[in-house]
């Protein structure tokens, strides 16, 4: 069991709003580890869309992320990459299409 704690900065213009929050939830869907985000003393389950929205983390906020589990390293990499690139839209579309989001269940 690996536990990792690290920080990220929210670079998105509008903060951690609907689209990035959705992207995070989808990203973590298949991760085994437990993941939590802490912002200003509020700690939430990062796999819960509502919890992420309740954080109301605006642009330039610093989040502390805790990842606990077998695939912690990979999860951390994915999260760091996602925050750095500001959650871009998938290729070939002008918005997130349903087919982009539906991933086959393992």
């Amino acid at each position: 069991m690996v536990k990792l704690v690290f920080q990220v900065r929210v670079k998105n213009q509008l903060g951690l709003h609907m689209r990035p929050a959705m992207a995070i939830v989808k990203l973590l869907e298949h991760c085994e580890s437990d993941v939590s985000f802490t912002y200003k003393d509020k700690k939430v389950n990062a796999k819960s869309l509502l919890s992420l929205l309740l954080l109301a983390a605006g642009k330039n906020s610093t989040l502390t992320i805790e990842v606990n589990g077998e695939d912690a390293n990979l999860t951390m990499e994915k999260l760091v990459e996602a925050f750095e690139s500001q959650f871009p839209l998938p290729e070939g579309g002008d918005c997130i299409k349903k087919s982009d989001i539906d991933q086959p269940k393992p």
Partner: protein
Amino acid sequence: MQVEQEIIIKGFALCRGVAIGKPFFLSHDDFAILETRILPTHMEREIERYREALSRSKQDIKRLQKQLEMESAAEGILILEAQLEMLRDPLLTIEIEKEIKNNRKNVEFVFQQALLRYQEQFQEMNDTFFAERFQDLQDVSRRIFGYLHESGHLSLSDAPPHSIVCAQELTASDAASAHSDCVSAFLTEIGGATSHAAIVAKAKGIPYVTNVSLQNLKDHAFHQIIVDGRTGKVIFNPSKETLKEYEELRDRMQQEAKALERMAKWPAETFDGYSIRLSANLDMTHEIDLIHQWGANGIGLFRSEYIFISTNGIPSEEDQQRIYQRMIGRMKGLPVVIRTFDIGGDKAALYQSFCNERNPFLGCRATRYLLKEEEILKAQLRAILRASIDGNVSILFPMISTLSELRQAKQMLQKARQELNLFHPIRVGCMIEVPSAALIVDHFVKECDFLSIGTNDLIQYALAIDRSEQALNEYHEPADPSMIRLIKLIISEADKGRIPVSLCGEIGSDPRFTALLLGLGIQELSVPPRQLPLIKNAIRRTSIVDAVQLAERALSMTTAQEVLDLIVSDYQKNTSDDLFYTHSTS
């Protein structure tokens, strides 16, 4: 209690058409939530009830998504996807079930308590943008409650065919989820002519009448309702004669609509051979098919703010380029006019207005705000430049009120060109929708390739009327002599400068104004796709000679009513067979 006699009510018509059907009540009421104890033996059943409600809500949303996909309305799919995610959210699944078990209370009570807690948390947020997210949660909750409450038939998708949907108020998502196969008309107590719901209803062609008192209806059993969306007349329990009259009318209107659509291949020219460009206003990508189907010249106005709906915020330059490129590609070489973002200084407010389902294109906005937010305007201009290399694209700047604003905007474009090293020709124009611009239009003419008259705002500012108010004088403002003169002034100066003028406001899509606009000298009309057949028909039924004479007479009149009477009688003379716009005003 059965009411036998025919009852006629006059409401305010928001969308034209005639419908005959049965009432279907849509309620957004909060149900009275009772708190009851659940015995341990009934616990499992209670949890099962909740899971069932969640499951049915999921099915509803998936069905809505399919509908949006088929209509190629990529917009809104993200919002629905987020709602689906909320239905899977541990806070709404595991946590609620835990509470039901721990507190031994019924689902409705537990769920509502949780909702109130979240509402408090959302309301505490300083940032209104985040606080507004609660609306999405509320939307989902209403659905869940509808399936928990035994008699709750909340969803429009439950409406049987030939339903006249009756509600206190209509939200845009109600209008969006209405199938025109099942929903024949909307009746509401309150509603705005420029509300998002009305716009969606018009886009779908569903008759809509508001200002109807529905209180009386609930106590009586009305079997049939006739809705006349042209006059705003609503007839409850129509007599045999009335029913027959309207059935025939409705059939004839359907035939007329079909006949008009067959005109798609014919040119938009008067019967003496004067042709004008008839283009379409584009808000939603699925309308592009209609544009081709109904033979428009091109896109006369692409309201670029619409892309906010699908991306929940201002998209990146790359994302925008993709969107514009796809649209331009689908237009297959036909001209496209892209209007740069028409938003205020507060981007959150724009997104807010989408969520609150007010008209998303209203608000305090101007290119001046965009000029301050240089990054945003430049990114958009760069995206347009990159997307337009192989297309026939023009750029339109909105809400220009001074010449220096226009010059700054053009400088921004020049900067963008230099950064990208792209110097392919693109026509640049600006909207004339503020009186200050109209008054110095001769200067604008020298620095633009074309002009576009935005009558909606021009009327509002020139006559000092707030168009978001439920205006009783919907008809009179556009026909006001001051408006006719303003349009004439703009066109005269543009003529001297040899540049074309297009018109993209509401009056452009009202066929009774078509001849007048032609006679004043408009070279291009841009209308909602659904109106293309009617406007083309109006063009073909007049001659430019008559149109010019009509305009001269209109210019000499002193009141809006006189002008309106003139153009209406002219329209009725030329197009007496149009059932949508020619009718007695009783």
